[in-house]
């Protein structure tokens, strides 16, 4: 009952956050206002007749067409510098030979031989630079909005006025071949089309070869007016190998041949445009072969927009007519052309800027009410977390009112839906969620205030200690500055380091690191409160330095944001397949496998140290045999993936089959391991039950089997102690080990053993989704969290009967570390930095039309650190109890203390470890609830700060480039983290339930 209410309450708090995020998002990330009006040849743009006076000529629309036919060759991700010659280098520096330079030599030749017939332009494009958005921009002339970036997997047809539509309505035959994204964008618009699947980025040749098969025959047949060929090979090569790979040179040479072939077949009335849709990091494209006019940029300008401000529109129209009149004049009098050209260009640029600014103004219109509502809801949820986390550790905390808000929320939602149904309005899910959240929030607040809050001063509601609060405030202030968001990859380790040193210094300051004799006599009254140090000073210092070192090493795996041109991304983030040198590749491969083995060995060592590995239960058998198998599978997959291109042709099938099977096998093994863990989570070696002589009877205040939970709670610790004594007696007879019993370790670490096993099982499939060398980061991640847990445990006193608390600094440092790992696994909160290849791990052939599976794989790759740290969050509560055994053992080592230890009461003498938690189940659940709420609070204020930053700075220059992506990543990260947190807490509760039933069985067996 208590468990269920804790989980339900946490889920409800998560729901509050989700409702807030959804409400804010619906107000902030608007889908762009799409106008379905189409311009026609009869309506000229702007007032008056066009200066060209082209109406009436055959085939003309607004102006006379200069070319009767166009060949548009789109080479995906063709960066501007790809078109540069090989010998272009900065004078004074040695010439660089890069694989992508000088391969498009036919363009250069044309530019040199026929300078009046060819032009090379560099164009800047607007983010997001994903293919579909760029296609939309190219064909509609609009600025694609941000929300479109999410629909890359399932693109939608363009309903706005666009180039293809105008061409077809003018009776031109448009033939298309290449990327099948066009099929979704312009369904049925082409007179003839050859589509090829675009999503498989591993495949460099299928699309290009398919196009080449049809390109020249179609061209020669003459049944076309506009021919569009969209090549994907360069883009896929960039995704797979990066621009510096020899493969890129091969691909570009192929493209060069294509251009060469096209130029040879070109007739005089045909325009050839070769363009890239976006770059790889810097964006560029170039057109060629014939003259391009300045007015070309204007052809999709559609003036039929209602929503623009009339005055500004008028101003723009005036500007345009003036510029076009100047242009006309310029054409007529070529004498002063040189002088007047700059002014015309300036005018046109001014016009374009004005039009762009106005478009942005009218598209990015925010719903302020929803944004404010969402922010308020987020703030309220944070407040609830704070309130409830304080309430949970108060002595007489009832679990019952936790269920109230859930019920009220349901009532509110149903009432709202009913209300809407009666007045027949469209049901908005976002609003429904918000109403449910508010209607459940208010009664809970009232209840909490009446039951607990009013009795206390407000100061206790704000319990975060000063230095931690300061660091948290810095962390939140980071979200309000675009430079800090960009530099967050460096700022987070800095803050984490500050946290770590703060923890060490605080430990020292509190006198917990040094024996008290070193300190001079403390003044009266304070000596009683200082606890004797549990560890020596060097211990915490070593932990701190080790943590700093790990953080710094993880920082070496750092991907640069696009905004900092000076910064160099770490070369270690790229997959091994993109490496050229064979020897270095082998060395790296060895290092990666070593990291894998080290991770495995560390987990096994840890489990052996606490004795859980000896248990014959299925999860531990799985750890012993299944985990090495998983590591083996991962290593084999890496070997295949990094050397797939070098395999001899007859082995190709085998290799591709294996690279499909191996990742799936590893994931399947992990899933079965997790299932085993859920089935039998108690990993304890049971040797009792064989009728061992009882040295002490269990004292029960009742006879017969236990009937209620209270009885069990009373009996269980006694049985436990009894068993311990029994084991110890046996061990002393065998004279094998010291005074500490093996059984104590096993039962004392039963919760964390399950957690660590689960985390390892989760980490392996996630590891597989990353590039090979990220495995070193994963090793660092485990090491780092291990050290941090130890450091935190050194500062958390064990309060024997409860209430147990997890201090704020622990939770904050944990959340910070999750963020830091997000960056050190090579991610950045921007869309171009998403690791798309993760979608092809285990699916080398692509996914067909399924979109959820690749989205899941890519999401798991991106938010791996969020997931791992959220699932591992309960370790923060468990670890101090684990460390208890160490502290005690260390203290028992000096022989003089032996007399002391005998005098001590029994439970002091033997570490009960995590069984202390079982001694007070009420406190245990309250502590879990509190831990979950605190973690949600820390994550929640981050998302709140992001939302506030995005709404306050919504007219900022960087809002779509920095703040909006950051908000989206934080929001998704929050969802992943909250789900992971719920899973982690549910796992602990599952173990708890299993331990209870195990005790019950034992008890019954003893009675027999």
């Amino acid at each position, binding site marked *: 009952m208590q468990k269920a209410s804790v989980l339900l309450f946490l889920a409800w708090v998560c729901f509050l956050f989700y409702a807030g995020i959804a409400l804010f998002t619906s107000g902030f990330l608007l889908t762009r206002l799409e106008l379905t009006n189409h311009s026609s040849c009869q309506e000229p743009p702007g007032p008056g007749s066009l200066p060209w006076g082209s109406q009436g000529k055959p085939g003309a629309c607004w102006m006379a067409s200069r070319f009767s036919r166009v060949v548009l060759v789109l080479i995906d991700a063709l960066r501007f510098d790809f078109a540069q010659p090989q010998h272009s280098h900065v004078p004074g520096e040695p010439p660089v030979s890069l694989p992508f330079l000088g391969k498009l030599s036919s363009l250069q030749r044309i530019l040199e031989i026929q300078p009046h017939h060819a032009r090379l332009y560099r164009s800047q494009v607007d983010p997001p630079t994903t293919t579909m958005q760029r296609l939309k921009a190219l064909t509609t002339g609009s600025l694609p909005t941000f929300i479109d970036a999410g629909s890359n997997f399932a693109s939608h047809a363009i309903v706005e006025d666009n180039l293809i539509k105008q061409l077809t309505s003018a009776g031109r035959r448009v033939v298309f071949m290449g990327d099948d994204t066009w099929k979704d964008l312009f369904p049925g618009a082409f007179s003839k089309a050859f589509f090829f699947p675009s999503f498989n980025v591993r495949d460099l040749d299928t699309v290009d070869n398919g196009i080449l098969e049809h390109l020249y025959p179609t061209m020669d047949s003459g049944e076309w007016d506009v021919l569009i060929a969209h090549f994907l090979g360069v883009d896929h090569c960039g995704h797979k190998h990066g621009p510096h790979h020899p493969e890129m040179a091969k691909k570009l040479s192929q493209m060069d041949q294509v251009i060469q072939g096209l130029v040879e077949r070109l007739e005089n009335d045909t325009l050839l445009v070769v363009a890239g849709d976006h770059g790889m990091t810097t964006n560029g494209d170039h057109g060629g072969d014939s003259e391009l006019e300045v007015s070309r940029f204007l052809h999709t300008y559609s003036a039929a927009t209602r929503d623009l401000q009339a005055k500004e529109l008028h101003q723009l129209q005036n500007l345009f007519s003036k510029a076009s009149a100047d242009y006309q004049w310029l054409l007529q009098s070529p004498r002063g052309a040189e002088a007047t050209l700059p002014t015309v260009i300036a005018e046109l640029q001014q016009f374009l800027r004005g039009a762009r600014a106005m478009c942005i103004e009218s598209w990015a219109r925010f719903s302020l009410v929803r944004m404010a509502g969402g922010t308020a809801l987020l703030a309220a949820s944070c407040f609830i977390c704070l309130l409830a986390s304080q309430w949970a550790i108060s002595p007489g905390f009832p679990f019952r009112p936790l269920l109230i808000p859930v019920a009220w929320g349901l009532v509110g939602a149903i009432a709202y839906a009913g209300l809407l149904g009666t007045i027949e309005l469209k049901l908005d899910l976002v609003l429904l969620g918000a109403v449910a959240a508010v209607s459940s929030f208010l009664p809970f607040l009232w209840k909490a205030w009446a039951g607990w809050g009013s009795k206390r001063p407000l100061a206790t509601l704000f319990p975060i200690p000063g230095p931690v609060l300061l660091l948290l405030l*810095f962390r939140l202030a980071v979200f309000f*500055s*675009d*430079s*800090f968001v*960009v*530099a967050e990859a*460096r*700022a987070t*380790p*800095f803050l984490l*380091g*500050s946290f770590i040193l703060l923890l060490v210094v605080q430990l*020292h*300051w*509190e*006198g917990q690191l*040094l024996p008290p004799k*070193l*300190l*001079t*006599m*403390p*003044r*009266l*009254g*304070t000596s009683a409160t200082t606890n004797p140090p549990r560890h020596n*000073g060097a211990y915490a210092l070593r932990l701190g*330095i080790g943590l*700093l*070192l790990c*953080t*710094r090493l993880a*920082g070496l795996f750092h991907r640069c944001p696009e905004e900092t041109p000076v910064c160099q991304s770490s070369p270690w983030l790229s997959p091994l397949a993109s490496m050229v040198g064979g020897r270095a590749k082998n060395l790296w491969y060895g290092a990666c496998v070593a990291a894998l083995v080290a991770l495995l060995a560390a987990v096994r060592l840890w489990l052996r140290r606490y004795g859980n590995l000896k248990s014959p239960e299925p999860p531990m058998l799985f750890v012993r045999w299944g985990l090495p198998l998983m590591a083996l599978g991962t290593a084999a997959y890496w070997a295949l993936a990094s050397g797939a291109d070098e395999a001899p042709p007859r082995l190709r099938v085998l290799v591709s089959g294996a690279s499909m099977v191996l990742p799936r096998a590893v994931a399947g093994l992990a899933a079965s391991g997790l299932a085993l863990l859920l089935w039998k989570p108690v990993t304890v070696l049971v040797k009792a039950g064989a009728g061992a002589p009882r040295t002490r009877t269990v004292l029960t205040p009742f006879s017969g089997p236990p009937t209620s939970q209270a009885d069990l709670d009373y009996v269980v610790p006694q049985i436990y102690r009894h068993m311990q004594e029994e084991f110890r007696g046996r061990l002393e007879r065998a004279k094998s080990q010291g005074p500490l019993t093996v059984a104590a370790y096993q039962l004392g670490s039963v919760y964390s053993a399950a957690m660590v096993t689960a985390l390892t099982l989760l980490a392996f499939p996630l590891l597989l989704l990353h590039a090979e060398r990220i495995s070193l980061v994963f090793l660092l991640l485990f090491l780092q969290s291990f050290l941090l847990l130890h450091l935190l445990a050194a500062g958390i006193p064990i309060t024997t009967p409860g209430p147990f608390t997890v201090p704020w600094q622990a939770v904050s440092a944990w959340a910070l570390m999750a963020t830091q790992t997000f960056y050190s696994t090579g991610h950045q909160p921007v869309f171009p930095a998403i690791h798309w290849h993760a979608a092809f791990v285990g699916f080398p052939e692509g996914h067909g039309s399924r979109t959820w599976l690749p989205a899941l794989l890519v999401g798991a790759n991106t938010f791996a650190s969020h997931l791992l740290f959220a699932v591992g969050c309960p370790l923060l509560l468990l670890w101090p109890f684990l460390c208890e055994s160490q502290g005690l053992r260390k203290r028992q080592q000096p022989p003089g203390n032996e007399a002391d230890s005998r005098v001590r009461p029994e439970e002091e003498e033997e570490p009960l470890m995590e069984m202390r938690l079982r001694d007070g189940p009420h406190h245990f659940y309250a502590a879990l609830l509190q831990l979950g709420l605190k973690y949600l609070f820390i994550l929640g204020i981050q998302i709140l700060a992001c939302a506030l930053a995005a709404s306050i700075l919504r007219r900022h220059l960087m809002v779509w480039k920095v703040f909006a992506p950051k908000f989206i990543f934080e929001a998704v990260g929050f969802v992943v983290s909250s789900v992971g947190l719920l899973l982690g807490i549910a796992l602990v509760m599952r173990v708890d339930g299993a331990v209870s039933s195990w005790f019950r069985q034992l008890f019954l067996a003893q009675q027999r």
Partner: protein
Amino acid sequence: MVGGSSSPLPFRGRLAIQENTMKDTDIKRLLYTHLLCIFSIILSVFIPSLFLENFSILETHLTWLCICSGFVTAVNLVLYLVVKPNTSSKRSSLSHKVTRFLKCCIYFLMSCFSFHVIFVLYGAPLIELALETFLFAVILSAFTTVPCLCLLGPNLKAWLRVFSRNGVTSIWENSLQITTISSFVGAWLGALPIPLDWERPWQVWPISCTLGATFGYVAGLVISPLWIYWNRKQLTYKNN
């Protein structure tokens, strides 16, 4: 910090008055020494421009770092020799003094290197700008380690005692605590504006940090006498 929980007992009244007067003179001496330290830092900004051409804090930052740390160290040493805040040293043979001095030098160097390592761990570049990072470590040592060495001697246990709760035994140690902590906090705060895109010349590693440390040190020098004066009633030290 040292909170005031215990009040002077009545029969110690006379003693308390003596203590108070003693403390007042001590606070005055403290204030003067601190003013001298601040003065030395100001001098380190202005004096070199008389002798060196093109001297400015930002452009010839490394020179200034050397000069400033030299000035601060010298002033601290002179003040230690003149004021003698701790008179505990009983053995005063020459060899003892020499070994003590050598030990102090070694401690100073070690603190420089360990600060350097900590900066690198905090994210400072490992290979580039190594000299700059090291000089930052030197100036931070001059602000923190040198006063510690002067006051407490090469005695790590005493250092650890001073920098823990209730470990302070005199106003000198109290002010040492405050100036050291404020220097560290200043250096930490100095790192914060580096990522901002204001494009100022002082936003470069390690200039903002050294400036922050200097400001923190000066602030600590100003604050500590005031703070001690303000709380003089509550402060009771065992040894005084």
